[in-house]
């Protein structure tokens, strides 16, 4: 009954989405006031999807093997938390989560949004319902999560230990919330284009949603990067894997949108541009979902052979993106002119930011999809990895990081002050860093060296917007910007340090022998068998000393029986100045063990920077939805932003 309840809720929600779309059409064609009705419909639709998702959680929690999805992906012996998390660790479940977040976001938007005109709100809710409708159809026709099995099997097949990991259980939902949060920006843009109300009010209504989605995407990417770092045991934090790029592309687009939306909110300029970015940002979310969920990454041919799901998703993508672009082409030219600005102004700075981010996005997009195109067209197989992305996008990212330090100093409309003077101190810090790297590490490669230089410059430059005034009286949004930009400098420092100073050792040593890496001397004390809840393991005991501290690390090789799998559990020790990363490999006939060690100076700054960037976003969001000085007119708050 539980599964059937879920399915029924899903059908009802789909019906309501259709009704919501109908109401929107009615409201736009006549002067009919449907505001209250459409809001209630959106809320009920959100509640229904929540019910459907709750039902899926329940069948997974109870290990109801008569549901095909549970049989395929769960097992009665699984730890409870992973039974529940297993609900969205598969194709159907994750698509249901996607739709649930989409509808719940729509419901919250219907409840909370007071900033746009009623007409635009109705149009946006209609657009949101159209999006949801397509994905309901996808679930109900091509990916029913509640399908039953008869007779019910005794136990499930899904006990993959590698998927039993907190990082993997909670990282995809974070990304999904971010992906789907951008749908509101998309719907608002479509709605405003339909009603011809693209203005500062719209930007202010859109901004909290974009900020919220962007924060979650930032957190999701940061957490995903750390997960890959500790779980894969390769010591790397970003592999330019298509799945990783699928989360990076919406982030790049959302970052650009986040900046251009401020121009629209503050100055009423960049109207068409911002609408375009809102459409692109959610399109990138859909591209990401398509890449991950269609199976096309595994093989273009597999995709062509078992096309139902992939083609369905591709059709949805084409319809939504195509329709939005056609609407944009029809209405974009008729948009009112934005407020003028001069060549040297905050607006120009943000336009350059947007252009650079768009170019980087284009490079990542083309690099990610190129292998798919080539294979589909010529059958030739190739892969595009770090050498391409680092060489082509890396220098642009560095240029962008330099400009990050300069843009916030410019004032709106026109800048007449000599702002370069303010940058003397940061420039001095940067040059000092450059000189130090030349003296300390003459053999360093070019990209890390420039990275450290730019990061040092940005550490100084990013806090300048708070220096020129009383920092305590600065608006929260300004604080948010400063913290996020400072976070970029921190993350860049971590990446450059890791790139330049990582030392690695790989050797076979016997118990009692030592190996040196960086400042550490690591002694292999012993290797002993041990066991966990559903695995047996070999655990190495390592003693690391650097003269002052003595640390104990215990990396493991784990063996799972069902299905037979082996995993490496790295042991990582974190210090203020870096991480000691240890992996135990295979035994050697001589009685020794393969041991792999890394000393990674300041690598933690990468994720600390990511967290700071997200925290800055959170501050800005708080400042936007909850303005401190209530009575101040909007233009005033905006001017300081």
């Amino acid at each position, binding site marked *: 009954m539980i599964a059937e309840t879920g399915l029924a809720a899903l059908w009802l929600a789909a019906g309501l989405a259709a009704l919501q779309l109908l109401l929107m059409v009615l409201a736009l064609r006549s002067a009919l006031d449907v505001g209250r009705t459409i809001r209630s419909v959106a809320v009920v639709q959100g509640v229904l999807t929540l019910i459907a998702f709750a039902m899926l959680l329940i069948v997974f929690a109870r290990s109801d093997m008569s549901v095909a999805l549970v049989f395929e992906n769960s097992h009665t012996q699984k730890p409870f938390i992973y039974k529940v998390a297993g609900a969205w660790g598969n194709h159907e479940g994750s698509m249901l989560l996607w739709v649930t977040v989409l509808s719940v976001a729509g419901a919250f938007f219907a409840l909370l949004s007071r900033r746009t005109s009623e007409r635009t709100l109705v149009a946006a809710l209609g657009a949101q319902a159209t999006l949801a409708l397509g994905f309901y159809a996808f679930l109900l026709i091509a990916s029913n999560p509640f399908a039953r099995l008869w007779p019910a099997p005794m136990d499930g097949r899904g006990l*993959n230990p*590698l*998927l039993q990991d907190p990082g*993997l259980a909670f990282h995809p939902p974070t990304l999904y919330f971010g992906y789907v949060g951008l749908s509101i920006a998309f719907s608002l843009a479509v709605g405003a284009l339909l009603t011809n109300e693209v203005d500062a009010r719209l930007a202010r209504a859109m901004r909290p949603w974009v900020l919220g989605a962007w924060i979650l995407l930032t957190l999701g990417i940061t957490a995903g990067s750390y997960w890959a770092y500790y*779980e*894969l*045991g390769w010591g790397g934090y970003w592999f330019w894997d298509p799945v990783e790029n699928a989360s990076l592309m919406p982030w790049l687009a959302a970052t650009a949108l986040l900046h251009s939306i401020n121009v629209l909110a503050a100055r009423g300029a*960049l109207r*068409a*541009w911002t609408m375009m970015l809102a459409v692109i940002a959610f399109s990138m979310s859909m591209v990401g979902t398509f890449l991950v969920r269609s199976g096309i*990454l*595994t*093989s*273009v*041919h*597999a995709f*062509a*052979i078992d096309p139902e799901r992939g083609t369905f998703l591709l059709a949805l993508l084409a319809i939504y993106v195509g329709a939005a672009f056609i609407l944009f082409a029809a209405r974009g030219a008729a948009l009112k*002119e*934005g407020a*003028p*600005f*001069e*060549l040297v102004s905050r607006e120009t700075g943000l*336009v350059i930011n947007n*252009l650079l981010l*768009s*170019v980087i*996005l*284009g*490079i990542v997009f*083309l*690099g990610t999809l*190129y292998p798919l195109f080539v294979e589909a067209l010529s059958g030739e*197989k*190739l*892969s*595009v*990895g770090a*050498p*391409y992305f680092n*060489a*082509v996008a890396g220098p*642009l990212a560095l240029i962008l990081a330099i400009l990050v330090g300069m843009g916030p100093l410019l004032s709106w409309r026109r800048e007449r002050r000599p702002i370069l003077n303010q940058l003397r101190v940061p420039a001095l810090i940067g040059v000092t860093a450059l000189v130090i790297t030349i003296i300390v590490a003459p053999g360093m490669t070019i990209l890390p060296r420039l990275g450290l230089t730019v990061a040092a410059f940005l550490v100084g430059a990013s806090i300048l917007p708070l220096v020129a005034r009383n920092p305590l009286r600065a608006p929260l949004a300004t604080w948010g910007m400063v913290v996020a930009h400072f976070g970029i400098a921190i993350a860049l420092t971590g990446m450059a340090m890791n790139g330049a100073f990582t030392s690695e050792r*790989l*050797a*076979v040593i016997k118990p009692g022998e030592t190996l040196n890496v960086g400042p550490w001397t690591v002694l292999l004390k012993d290797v002993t068998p041990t066991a966990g809840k559903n695995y047996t393991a070999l655990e190495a005991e390592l003693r690391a000393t650097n003269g002052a501290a003595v640390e104990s690390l215990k990396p493991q090789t784990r063996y799972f029986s069902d*299905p037979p*799998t*082996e*995993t*490496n559990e790295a042991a990582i020790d974190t210090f203020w100045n870096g991480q000691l990363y240890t992996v135990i*490999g*295979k035994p*050697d*006939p*001589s009685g*020794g063990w*393969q041991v*792999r060690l890394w000393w990674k100076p300041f690598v933690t700054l990468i994720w600390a920077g990511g967290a700071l960037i997200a925290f800055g976003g959170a501050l800005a969001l708080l400042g936007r939805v909850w303005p401190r000085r209530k009575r101040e007119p909007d233009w005033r708050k905006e001017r300081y932003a």
Partner: protein
Amino acid sequence: MKPKNQRLVLVAAAVVALLVAVLLAMWGLKDRASYFYTPADIAAGKAQQGQAMRLGGMVERGSVQRQPDGVTIRFVVTDGQAATPVLYRGIVPDLFREGSGAVAEGRLENGIFIADTILAKHDERYMPPELGNLASERKAGKTLAK
């Protein structure tokens, strides 16, 4: 700047950005994409010496030999038609076994494939994409009767 001109400048800037992205990507992809070869491709001389590439196939049973330093292995990758010897220094991934599929990243030197990385993913159902292709192509050959 007049509003009309401003819009023109912005549109022009967007178009230039798009062009720059495409040109940069094309320039980068020209020599930084690594092609995938099977041992049969290498035997046929399709692969250039020293160029970054991927090699995929099955690890031949009984071919894995450990070198004296304990961390370097030699093995043979085969696709049923030809075989390529591979040299790899590092800890082999969890799912690397004789008789199962593997993809190695590296370059060809004097007929030996020097691997920098051996690929395996965090899911036992995961097949390195290129091997998945081989399997599905065989399937496709049957269903489509090419």
